[in-house]
């Protein structure tokens, strides 16, 4: 590959172009957040967060959708965490690298790549129709469980692997059993890393639309049990925007969504930083 510019000159040109592209990328992403906040923040108020929607969301608040989001997310995280962390413990502490770990890891990676609409289809056919749970928080929560499982497995695995070998050796040499070592020494040390994965998963649950709309439905009432259909904030935002019900309400909902996800990501980031600093 010969270049048509002298190397020094080329270097300068490339550097300028790349600087420009980098600034453009950062600005594009920052612009999206700024745009939503600019239009959404004026709509936000205590009433907006705590009142019921009026006329399909044309006016009023978004309270039921906040409850719906929290319920679905909680359910998914409560089920996915033990399974995900258990799998990670198995992969790191209870087996040696081999075909078995490769299969499990490959399965988890494939699962991570499956688009959310496929999870939605699957949840719809299995939970909503075959198991007759209907459009409900339960169906939606279980579907989200499957969706976030790979994230929890991967981050927990990395976190457990990061705990220095010496921790385990000391515990074992003091007469601790394998399980005591894992449960009382390794897991507490890996906790911030595991928490990172869980919080990331919370973010994914909050932002998810396609998998939720076909499993939890889109009822705007306040959910009363695990079997009530419920609408999450993302679904509400999607419906408001797509059906043109109310732009200002859509902006407001989007602002709540973005703020909560940014907060979650900031917490994740600081947790992860603390964890990495502790062990390196």
């Amino acid at each position, binding site marked *: 590959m010969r270049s048509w510019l002298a190397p020094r000159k080329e270097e300068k040109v490339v*550097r300028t172009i790349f600087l420009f592209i*980098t600034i453009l990328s*950062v600005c594009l992403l920052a612009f999206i957040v700024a745009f939503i906040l600019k239009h959404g923040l004026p709509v936000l108020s205590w009433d907006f967060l705590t009142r019921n929607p009026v006329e399909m969301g044309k006016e009023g608040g978004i309270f039921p959708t906040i409850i719906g989001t929290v319920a679905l997310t909680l359910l998914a995280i409560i089920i996915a965490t*033990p399974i995900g962390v258990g*799998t990670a413990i198995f992969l790191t502490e*209870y087996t040696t690298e081999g075909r078995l770990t490769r299969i499990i890891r490959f399965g988890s990676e494939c699962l991570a790549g499956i688009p959310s609409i496929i999870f*939605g*289809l699957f949840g719809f*056919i299995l939970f909503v129709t075959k198991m007759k749970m209907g459009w409900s928080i339960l169906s939606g929560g279980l579907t989200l469980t499957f969706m976030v499982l790979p994230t929890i497995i991967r981050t927990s695995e990395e976190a457990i692997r990061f705990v220095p070998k010496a921790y385990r050796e000391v515990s074992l040499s003091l007469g601790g059993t*394998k399980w005591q070592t894992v449960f009382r020494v390794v897991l507490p040390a890996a906790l911030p890393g595991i928490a990172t994965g869980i919080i990331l998963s919370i973010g994914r649950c909050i932002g998810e639309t396609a998998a939720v709309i076909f499993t939890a439905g889109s009822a705007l009432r306040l959910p009363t049990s695990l079997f009530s259909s419920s609408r999450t904030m993302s679904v509400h935002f999607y419906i408001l925007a797509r059906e043109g019900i109310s732009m200002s309400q859509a902006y407001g909902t989007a602002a709540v969504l973005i703020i909560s996800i940014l907060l979650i990501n900031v917490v994740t980031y600081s947790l992860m930083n603390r964890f990495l600093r502790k062990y390196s």
Partner: protein
Amino acid sequence: MRKLKGKERLIRLSLLVVAFSAISVLGLITLFIFSEGLPIMFRHGLKNFLFNLDWYPTEGSFGLLPMIIGSLLVTIGAMLVGVPLGLAGAIYLTQFTSKKVRVVVKPLIELLAGIPSVVYGFIGVVILVPLIRTYLGGPGLSVLAAAVILGIMILPTILSISIDSLMALPPSYREGSIALGATQWQTVRLVLLPAARSGVVASIILGMGRAVGETMAVIMIAGNATSLPRSILDPVRTLTSNIALEMGYASGEHRQALFATGVILFIIIMVLNTIANLTSRKMSS
């Protein structure tokens, strides 16, 4: 001591069961999607699905070709937007600037990676679509709009994984090349990029997977017409939007045809996943 050993074995066994139940989810999903989608594909012939342009699912015509082409166009477009931006950004942030800038900008971009895709779709509707309609013509809801928005959406993925794989290279590669008199750009082009190739490729394929699989954002901006687009300003429907748009009211064979759409999507994603998996394994060995 012996009793304890038995207990340890029990713990190992139960963890094994947990691990397998976790990945059996993949099997379950495959099973359910295929058992709903495959029968109708064989009943009406694969040709009716793959090489047919007419989607009239209630009349026995299940042409998914426009959607397959739609997904393809939107994804390629998204890659054309996202890959150059992401790669150039990754190269700039790892090679041409100080660590100070990188430790500020990289987290910032990763924070933004969590913005829900519906928000990207919404931005497309309120800003990009009117711009395209006014300045380039057509309905605005188009291949172009979807490609640009998805390209921006996958930007953080490509950027952050590419940065990681460029940073993972031994510093001696760069030092050696600079010491031999190469400029930084020559070093990047001839030494670092080839060395980090598999990581960069994996990041691109991951981004591609996200673009192929994205649903709600695409529905909002691609226009969803079931005909073949003649230009990038024409509306288009992707495989994912085909499912999501009609799932709400479909029944009988129509619904099965949507699952057949899911089967095709599933196969495309699995192929992409496997390629990504193989390249990243090559990187780690």
